[in-house]
């Protein structure tokens, strides 16, 4: 992979049509704080994400990666700029729209954030339960299927506390995919895992998103997993400074 400097516009992908574009961001600015404490954390971000594309977003701590992730995930209000996710304009969007977008996005957290009181199967089913059109039985079958796909068919009834770190993250991946999302946002999914397990989890994630037709934006510092990306973006001081295409 070769990284290179680029103008801000270089990370947008003109020529992409609405059917294949999952994320379309132009001129995104975001601030935290008030008055003299006001901090400009995202500065004129332009970004496109295509269907079935895996993009890794890297950069030093505090550069704005997670803020960008939360804005794309419809978890924060967009202050300035044009943010279209899965065909919905998020700037000025109502809570109903934000919630509708969230339901079409799978989220994988650094700390997996599984519900401690639920079994692996139930945790995955919490994702499947978001799809109200499917009857219970089908949602349950889907949860089983996903857990089989991530290699945990024999761990259905175990609570998160009884699973290893890698197994928990696999459950989190299955949960994120259970609602059949069009976009997957992953925040440091390998940070809490050893290198071998981290590699396994990322390869699993790569295979699963290909099989399920998702686009992925993954924030990571882990240099060992960069090769799974179709594109690499590097952020610095609230700007996307560089892009590298996968080899």
């Amino acid at each position, binding site marked *: 992979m070769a990284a290179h400097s680029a103008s801000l516009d270089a990370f947008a992908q003109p020529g992409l049509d609405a059917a294949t574009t999952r994320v379309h961001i132009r001129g995104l600015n975001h601030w935290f704080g008030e008055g003299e404490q006001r901090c400009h954390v995202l500065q004129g971000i332009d970004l496109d994400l295509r269907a079935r594309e895996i993009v890794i977003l890297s950069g030093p701590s505090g550069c704005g990666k*997670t803020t960008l*992730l*939360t804005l794309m*995930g419809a*978890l*924060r209000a967009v202050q300035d700029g044009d943010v279209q996710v899965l065909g919905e304009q998020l700037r000025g969007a109502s809570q109903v729209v934000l*919630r*509708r977008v*969230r*339901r*079409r*996005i799978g*989220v994988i*957290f*650094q700390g997996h*954030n599984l*519900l*401690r*009181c*639920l079994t692996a199967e*139930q945790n995955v*089913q*919490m*994702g499947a*339960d*978001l799809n*109200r059109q499917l*009857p*219970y*039985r089908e949602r349950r079958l889907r949860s089983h299927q996903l857990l089989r796909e991530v290699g945990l068919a024999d761990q259905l009834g175990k609570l998160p506390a009884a699973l290893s770190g890698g197994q928990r993250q696999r459950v989190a991946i299955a*949960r994120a995919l259970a*609602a059949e999302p069009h976009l997957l946002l992953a*925040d440091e999914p390998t940070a809490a895992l050893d290198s071998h397990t981290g590699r396994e989890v990322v390869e699993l994630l790569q295979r699963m998103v290909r099989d399920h037709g998702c686009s992925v934006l993954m924030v990571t510092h882990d240099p060992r997993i960069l090769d799974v990306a179709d594109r690499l973006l590097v952020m610095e001081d609230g700007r996307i400074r560089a892009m590298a295409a996968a080899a």
Partner: protein
Amino acid sequence: MLPERLLHLWQRRRVPLAWMLLTRQPVRLAVALAGISFAGVLMFLQLGFRDALFEASITIHRLFDADVVLISPRSTSSNAMQAFPRRRLYQAAGWQEVASVAPVRWNFVQWKNPETGKPRSLLALGFDPADSVLLLPELETMQPKLRLGNRVLYDRLSRKEFGPVPEWFEQGREVRAQVGDVEVKVEGLVRMGASFSADGNLITSDRTFAKFRNSRGGVGTTNGSIELGLLRLHPGADAEALVRQMQAVLPPDVRPLTKDQFLAFEQNYWKSSTSIGFIFTLGAAMGVVVGSVIVYQILFSDVSDHLAEYATLKAMGYSHGSLVGVVMREALLLALLGYFPSWVAGLGLYALTRSQTMIPIAMTQAMATTVFCLILGMCTASGLLAMRKLNQADPAEIF
């Protein structure tokens, strides 16, 4: 169609998150249920005592075989029945609607425990043994025995402090006791019931009752006065209309009441003229407060402990409302699970109270429903308060 709707609901069911959150920590759940049950027991007891008080206050009143009752306007309750001129009863008998009348003497006398000799206040009713005054079937055979002097019928539901009279009588022993300075013989046992104002009751003839009047510690009314005048009306007569007529015609030294008004007269005294009703209601309210604090603490700590998980669910697309639903379902489950033990304990405590105090405290459907609604309201209110913490579950902060 109901089956289709049920099938639809069944197919739409989700992971029972509220149940799983509650049962994840069994010890904490047990503590919560113990607290809710304690609050429920407190409510059952307080409301049960209050209702029993009101019910017991008219235990004797209900027994009178009358459509209209005359009392003194100076009477404030069964504790303080005042006398009025007997001739008012005979005046009332002149109304064509009246089929028969019966004068009744009513007051408290000093009964000496025949075993220990300790005196204790007991309600005595005196009337002509030829009159049918009380709706007690057993009186039909026993009442004629009262024609002999110094004979009484003893209420077997009187408190034990009055002595082992029922036991001795049933063993075939001759039971004699002192009422004031008059020695009486127990000729039989009746079932009347104790109340908050009277721990025990006896029935005697008007002649024997008059002896009590002259005894030390006796009743103290004149021969020409009575405390109650009972009127039975011809079938189809309108008691309320007759009472209105009597109120307009009779002198103000007597107060005519229908039987229902007579019951209400007594109950109103306990409800409005004493602080007892308020005290018991306050006691029940304390139960609600105690229970609310316990449920709030449980739900608040539950939401706090799972804040990151709730935020995760929000990030996944669950609405704030659906998470509020989870907390409210937890509250509902706590109410249901906490209510049942309190109901069982309430049944046991009611039985114990009945056996020890003879107070007519009972688990009625209305009582069971009232306490359930209070517990449900208590848990719902606590759930609503605890929900405020859910606002802090910010999905953007969990990354």
